[in-house]
């Protein structure tokens, strides 16, 4: 049930026919996991908190570095040296005190991920490397919950939504290990992609619109174009090849 305060706070989005009070209630009841509170995780968490997602669990083991500040907008100059999840918790609770923020200061590994994911309705991939992305993908498949993929480099980014067992997953396109690198990036790129991921999360939770499934959206800020390509589910996929999604 929405309180009087909720009705005021979320007034402008409740006015959207696709959301309405029912949609807002769904957002308030949702519990989402945001894996990584960096360039992608910052805008995603900001907008999901503002939209009134009931519980946001944030996972990151890192501390704020001065070189993060050009893009990781949850972290400010005074936060340098502070744990990212604490810095994020403070900003998000000040933005919206009526939601729960659950900070988890851990490095995501194969043996702790199941516990970290437990109880969440979905996972936002806001990571900066494919090793952990594949762990998130596996976990999303195991828990049968959606994964909202995003990645950036320079002025370029991409996003895709994965409904395990129903639509193509990250492993469906696997072509070998991806080396970790220190990517060049300007803050506006993860802002664009993070906002797309947050949009997809809101649509999934409220059950509206066409999700970015079986298609990858490529953003190019230099040319200022969005391109979309069809991605097919791989029947031999190492993660989702043997499973059927729940209807």
């Amino acid at each position, binding site marked *: 049930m929405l309180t009087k305060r909720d009705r005021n706070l979320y007034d402008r989005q409740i006015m959207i026919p696709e959301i309405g009070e029912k949609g807002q209630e769904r957002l308030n009841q949702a519990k989402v996991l945001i894996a*990584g509170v*960096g*360039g*992608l*995780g910052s805008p995603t968490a900001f907008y999901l908190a503002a939209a009134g997602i009931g519980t946001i669990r944030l996972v990151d083991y890192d501390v704020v570095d001065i070189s993060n500040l050009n893009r990781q907008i949850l972290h400010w100059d005074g936060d340098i040296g502070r744990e990212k999840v604490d810095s994020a918790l403070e900003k998000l609770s000040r933005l919206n005190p009526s939601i729960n923020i659950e900070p988890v200061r851990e490095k995501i590994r194969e043996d702790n991920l199941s516990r970290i994911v437990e109880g969440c309705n979905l996972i936002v991939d*806001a*990571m*900066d*490397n*494919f090793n952990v*992305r594949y762990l998130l993908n596996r976990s999303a498949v195991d828990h049968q919950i959606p994964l909202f993929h*995003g*990645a*950036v*480099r320079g002025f*370029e*980014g*991409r996003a895709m939504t994965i409904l395990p067992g129903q639509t193509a997953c990250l492993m*469906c*396109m696997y*072509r*070998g290990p*991806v080396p*970790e*690198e220190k*990517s060049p*990036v300007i803050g506006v790129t*993860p802002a664009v992609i993070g906002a797309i991921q947050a949009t997809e999360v809101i649509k999934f939770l409220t059950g509206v619109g066409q999700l970015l499934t079986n298609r*990858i959206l*490529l953003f*190019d800020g*230099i*040319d200022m174009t969005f*391109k*979309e*390509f*069809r*991605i*097919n589910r*791989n029947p031999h996929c190492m993660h989702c090849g043997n499973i059927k999604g729940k209807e």
Partner: protein
Amino acid sequence: MGIKVHVHQSHVQYTNGERIIEVEGHTVGACLKNIAVKYPEFGKQIFEKQGKLNHLFEIYVNGESAYPKELEKEIKDGDDVYITRLLSGG
């Protein structure tokens, strides 16, 4: 009229600035080999050892992923091929 191959922003350094290259070939692999002949430095990026496609590259044909056997994918005149690369930053 041949195959239109769209070159990624980061690869135009190997193609004298060309964003679209027209080539001939009945498969993606044949087209890419022709590109490698014309632009050897780009060829070194496209192919790994034993002529395998660089595993960080992605190929899309007419708006659809050519995965998994990209190089064997058959194509015809007028088709659009995009060469792009995986992004991993966050």
